[in-house]
């Protein structure tokens, strides 16, 4: 077993970078038709006019990945999974807020 260190550059999947539809599908094991359904559902918003020229903001990958895990793991339909992801995002945001506010209330020692 060889032990060598590989130096790699990380790319942040933020709003400033985009991922093409093809790469997104390949990465997620998704058919283009499924991606189209996600766009029609208003879950992710592409740049570009037609599916073959679509690109998506970086965070779309994580959202779609969560969506697919929920669909596959819980066997729920697309609309249900979209709702679940959006609620989960709200919960995450609220938890973050609550934690920040609790810290502020606790304040200095």
């Amino acid at each position, binding site marked *: *077993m060889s*032990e*060598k*260190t*590989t*130096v*790699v*550059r*990380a*790319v*942040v*999947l*933020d*709003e*400033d970078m985009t991922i093409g539809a093809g790469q997104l599908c*390949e*990465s*997620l*094991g998704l058919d283009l038709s499924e991606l189209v359904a996600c766009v029609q559902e208003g879950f992710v918003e592409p740049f570009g006019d037609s599916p073959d020229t679509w690109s998506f903001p*970086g*965070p779309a*990958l*994580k959202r779609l*990945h*969560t969506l697919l*895990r*929920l669909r*596959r*793991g*819980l*066997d729920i339909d697309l609309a249900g999974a979209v709702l*679940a992801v959006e609620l*989960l995002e709200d919960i*995450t945001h609220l938890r*973050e*807020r609550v*934690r*920040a506010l609790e*810290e*502020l209330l606790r*304040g*200095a020692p």
Partner: protein
Amino acid sequence: MKYKDYYKIMGVAREAGADEIKRAYRKLARKYHPDVSKEPRAEEQFKELGEAYEVLRDPEKRAAYDHLGSAWRPDQEFTPPPDWGNSRSGSADTGTGYAADHQFSDFFETLFGHAFHGGTGTSGMRMRGQDQHARITVSLDEAYRGAARVVQLGVQERDARGGMSPRSRTLQIQIPAGIIQGQQIRLAGQGAPGTGGAPSGDLYLEVEFEPHPLFHPEGHDIHLTVPITPWEAALGTQLTVPTLGGKVEMKVPAGSQSGQRLRLKGRGLGGKTAGDQYIVLQIMTPPAGTAAAREFYERMSREFPFNPRSHMGV
């Protein structure tokens, strides 16, 4: 290798019907799905559940599993019976994708290994490696400045015979400045290797922040509670406060109150548009610990006709 009691994992009796097994799976899947669950071992439990369901929902696998008998205890040391493998057919199972993301246990692999694994007959086929997903914990300082981090990855790699074997890899990752909690970073070509000369998949790491004793991040913004004295609040002052980028001077206006929020623009986590740092003032009351201090407070109570509860009508 440890024996796994799939019936116990799913909380059903050995004679449970297919419907009951499906119901149990659905219920537990919602409970342990890692995206939904707050259980500490959710990921592990969801994996176990997926594996148990993979066996119990499939009459052929279930029959083979039942054939082992019911005398086994969970986690008991297990070796397959000597006749194992002769009695079952090698029929392929295309799978439902329920457990597609998961690696099964050695127990599962031994019992239902390659012959049962349909859809993996990829030998000779050119196929890009799968993307892999993991988490990485970084400190706020690393997020602010960017950092080089060395991480060890335990990976399953396909060997020459098409089986999976564990290996560890060391990666040095250049973490870009300005990442925030929950964001993903992509390491191109660091996922699972491809087959037939096809390229490797990518590795995605989800960023998690280590808790910081002073700063509390929220997206790109940073919150910090700063204690001040009552006279600093009343008279106004110039304070030195810590930020991720170092100390800065900040003006506290006269007549400030506890809980009041001040903004240090652009002092949060970076990115195209840097976040802000919010300062929440917290007025600290000096203790009336000495006779002189007591006397001072008493004089204040006489000379300050101040009722903070007047709006309550009391």
